[in-house]
């Protein structure tokens, strides 16, 4: 069951990512990416992390990607196609190299003796995550919240309409 699910999810995620990075139209790319994030969230669930799966959907699929769609539509980028990317002649060798590197890495880690251990019997309840977050990591949580606050202020400052005499 877990095996079948893993392969299906992995296939969906990788295909969606591949399509996402090759589409010319940014709206298509966003949609493929949402599909990929969804598969990723299900994979988190498979790994016994229901809370992370829920965060993944709420934060990425529900908020960040909607923000991307909003910006793409507001700037009117949807209909125009992005120009052709660099050709295969220039980038082919790099692709080939990194692909063979990838294959080597995958083969290597598959041969590791510890790879035989079955995964997936670990399940983390939301309460445990909450206790750890607001107990041991409370300082980091505060820092991240400050970062979010600064990001909000920064986004506001960048996005506000320019006043007269500024930005020339």
């Amino acid at each position, binding site marked *: 069951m877990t095996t079948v699910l893993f392969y299906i999810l992995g296939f969906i995620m990788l295909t969606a990512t591949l399509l996402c990075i090759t589409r010319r139209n940014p*709206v298509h790319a966003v949609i493929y990416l*949402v599909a990929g994030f969804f598969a990723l969230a299900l994979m988190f669930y498979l790994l016994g992390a229901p809370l992370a799966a829920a965060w993944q*959907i709420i934060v990425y699929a529900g908020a960040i990607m*909607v923000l991307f769609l909003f910006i793409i*539509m507001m700037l009117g980028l949807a209909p125009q196609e992005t120009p052709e990317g660099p050709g295969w002649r220039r980038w082919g060798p790099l692709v080939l190299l990194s692909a063979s590197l990838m294959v080597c890495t995958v083969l290597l880690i598959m041969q590791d003796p510890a790879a035989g251990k079955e995964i997936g019997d670990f399940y983390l309840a*939301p309460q445990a995550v909450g206790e750890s977050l607001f107990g041991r990591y409370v300082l980091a949580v505060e820092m991240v919240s400050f970062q979010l606050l600064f990001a909000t202020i920064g986004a506001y400052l960048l996005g506000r309409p320019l006043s007269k005499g500024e930005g020339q």
Partner: protein
Amino acid sequence: MTPEMLSLSNSPGIFIGVMLVKILVVFMVVMLSVAYATWWERKIIGHMQTRLGPMRTGWHGLLQPFADGIKLFFKEEIIPTQATIVPFLLAPAMILVPALITVAVIPFGPDLHIGNFLIPQQITDLNVGVLYILAFAGLGIYGIVLAGWASNSKYSLLGGVRASAQMISYELAAGLTIIAVFMLSETLSLREIVALQQEPLWGICSFVPNWYVFTQPLAFGLFIITGLAEINRTPFDMPEAESELVSGFCTEYSSMKYALFFLAEYANMIVISAITATLFLGGWSAPLNWGLFNMIPGFVWLLAKVYFLMFCFMWLRATFPRVRYDQLMRMGWKVLLPLALANVVVTGLVVVVLQ
């Protein structure tokens, strides 16, 4: 022999059968409620405006939903030539499906004791139930945005852009109001949240149940407002504003696809009412701890609460004009969000002090 919880491991056949029956029943109830919500809304708004509403089809227009359905079914299917076909066709389903999926975690009664098994009256009990609801509530937006984008019409696109901005702003406040609830419940499972709300109020008054609307009145109000904004109901129906955007993201839609948008709107209304009832109004539990009330089955109470909240939403529609877009944004970011944050802080303080 003590009864055990029916699960996939102890008797898979019965489990799957019971699950299918539960899914079918819940689906039928939601769909029938959606069909009659359209009739009900026309009736209520009609009477509030001293009209009669639909009267011709059946007794007091009771067959009106079917007449509407048949009419829309036989209308001509029009697909604009400049539309992007696939997302254009899929968008209505993309709004409806998340709404229907959300119902899966709403409990509608106590555990049934049949034979040797305890069967929960809930399709599934996730231990991240509340987050599941937030997650799927956020996904419905893709249907609206894609419908607006795929139609390739400026009104539709404007509707889609408005919908996405509105969703991002109000989902934040909705999430924060729910946080105050599960700070009290200390669990994310809706089943346990309902169980906690059946205890005596504040541990003293045994006659009244401990509904979170009594301890969290502000969160209740905020959740109703943000919920209305999230499902694009009337004071906040900016994405489909008929009078400014020619019904926005569904301008180019016709026939059954338009009917699907309608179904999705009412299904979303039912879902948001059911969530509000479960989180704040005690779910399927009776409003007073009294013998006669406790004899009425749980799903009746849940449906009564859902229909009452839906009546309130229709009432709001008949009463309030549509807010302007900048007012909507200002309210979301400068009023609702700080209020929700303050509510979280105060709730936290009270919880700590009471410990």
